[in-house]
């Protein structure tokens, strides 16, 4: 019953933020009537059109991307049995950004969709981090994995900067994008993220019972019938697609994948069957709130939402790391 109320609360907060984000910080006077007519798609005032074509997809995308990041972080923490694991901490976000930067800079001849490059980049970085961090071994320390992830993240960031410098012409644009921004979301992006988030829920629901057993330790989970290799492979593949999609749509947005599962754990305990939807909900709320704040900081100019999540996320990480010691 307590869980029910917590989900209701999350839903109410998300709804309130959603409504606010449709009218907050605008050079146009966006009234309630404009928002309502935009939601039904019937409005023909300028304000209603702006809400329908720009603000609505942006707000929906923030929820979808935030939820995807929250769930991806939860799954990563589940299989590595490490609460500091997250797309950013494991270098996946950095790898995905590097992949996308290489392709979009035009430095390599190969042309492929940005999303594919992001998924490949994330997969390579994540594999290297798990190899360096000996994540599969039972004795592996938490610190070693996070250290490997942060090293990989720094390496990817350095290489991305190099790519940006080599392609100086477009450096400013890439730098803006590299901070993670939702300012140019289209309805097509929303469709992509909707599919990805749906897939995330499905994978999350499928692996949740196994992740619960992983709480007992990898060997115990294996003894209880968990097929470890399959579990790790499916989380790895799903995680790369989830993070790659968010990076391709909005750029790297850090710390949501770290914060959402940990906050959810404080709220609903350690049952992954409940943690999957709750991490999604918390992630969605966090990113939507961050995007509203990002629009307000230097209004009317745009600032990247990724900068806001980093501002809140970095101290959160420090507190978490201290608490786990």
């Amino acid at each position, binding site marked *: 019953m307590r869980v029910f109320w917590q989900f209701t609360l999350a839903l109410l907060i998300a709804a309130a933020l959603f409504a606010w984000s449709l009218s907050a910080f*605008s*050079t*146009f006077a966006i009234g309630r009537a404009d928002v309502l007519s935009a939601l039904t798609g019937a409005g023909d005032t*300028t304000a209603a*059109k*702006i809400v329908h*074509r*720009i*603000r609505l997809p942006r707000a929906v995308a923030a929820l979808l991307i935030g939820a995807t990041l929250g769930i991806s972080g939860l799954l990563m923490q589940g299989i590595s049995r490490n609460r500091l694991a997250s797309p950013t901490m494991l270098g996946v976000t950095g790898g995905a950004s590097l992949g996308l930067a290489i392709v*979009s800079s035009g430095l390599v001849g190969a042309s492929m969709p940005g999303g594919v490059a992001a998924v490949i980049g994330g997969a390579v970085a994540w594999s290297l981090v798990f190899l360096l961090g000996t994540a599969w071994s039972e004795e592996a320390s938490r610190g070693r994995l996070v250290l490997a992830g942060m090293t990989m993240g720094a390496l990817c960031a350095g290489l991305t900067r190099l790519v940006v*410098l080599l392609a*100086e*012409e*477009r*450096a*400013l*644009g*890439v730098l*803006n*994008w590299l901070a993670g921004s939702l*300012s*140019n979301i*289209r309805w097509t992006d929303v469709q992509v993220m909707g599919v990805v988030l749906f897939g995330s829920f499905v994978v999350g629901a499928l692996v949740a019972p196994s992740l619960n057993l992983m709480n007992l330790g990898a060997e115990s989970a294996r003894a209880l019938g968990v097929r470890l290799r399959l579990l790790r492979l499916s989380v790895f593949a799903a995680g790369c697609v989830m993070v790659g999609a968010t990076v391709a749509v909005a750029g790297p947005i850090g710390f949501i994948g770290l914060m959402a599962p940990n906050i959810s754990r404080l709220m609903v305990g350690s049952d992954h069957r409940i943690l999957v939807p709750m991490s999604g909900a918390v992630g969605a709320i966090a990113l939507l709130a961050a995007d509203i704040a990002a629009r307000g900081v*230097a*209004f*009317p*100019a*745009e600032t990247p939402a990724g900068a806001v999540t980093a501002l809140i996320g970095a101290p959160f990480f420090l507190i978490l790391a201290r608490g786990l010691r």
Partner: protein
Amino acid sequence: MQLNLGLVFGLCLAASSALADPITVNDGTHEVTLPDTPHRIVALEFSFVDALASVDVSPVGVADDNDPARIPDEVRDIVGDWTSVGTRPQPSIEAIAALHPDLIIADLDRHSAVYDAFSAIAPTLLLPSRGEDYEGSLRSAALIGKAVDKQSQMQARLEQHRASMADYARRIPDGATMIFGAAREDSFSLHGPDSYDGSVLQSLGINVPEVRAQGGASDFVSLEQLLGLDPDYLLVGHYRRPSIIDTWNGDELWSILKASDGRVISVDPNVWARNRGIMAAEKIAADTLAVLDGSFEQID
């Protein structure tokens, strides 16, 4: 021995009379003394090449982003060929040293951190270029004129420039709002009234809308904010096609923009964004006049 000393003294006297007087320039952060008129000059921003060309001086090295075509034809026709010393944000110190320059002109914004490395190679002027406005760029040009010992020629050129800009301003009708923005495929940054091209436009009597109070030289905006500013003319420098403007162009919201009925003009980003200086300002003025009287030929 005494004979030798006398010989040396005599030689020195002869040498010094053959040399020009040392030139001293204060660039605002350093007092730079040049022992002689510099002939091997390395310029690390496009506006400095513009200033040198304005007094018929050719630099031996330019940080041209490895693409000489970024500097306008008018400037290249005057200064001829140079050796590239790399990109403006990351010029190669080795390549600069290899040219044995006797003057380096570096950008206050980009190169302050490596000033010591430059000044170990040659006397270095640190002048504002990136993020500088129109009047500031003319001040830099005047200092460059002094440094290359062509102060009076530069003054004459500046006076001629002001006269020609005043002539443009007379022919350009007052009151139109116009703003330039640089478009990449995923972002659009508007150059407000404090930017270089924004301040040139304002000097011509054009209204340049402010993107935000205390804004920087350029600000990233979304389509919504662009619609909010709604300038009469939107000038776009496409760094890559299709750019975000091409994407927005297909949106039904685009028609809300006043300028969407043929007054969204694509201009040369090399002229409007990358180059600053005397000739760049004159090109911007000529472009502006052509845009307003409808004779401007858009670039693809």
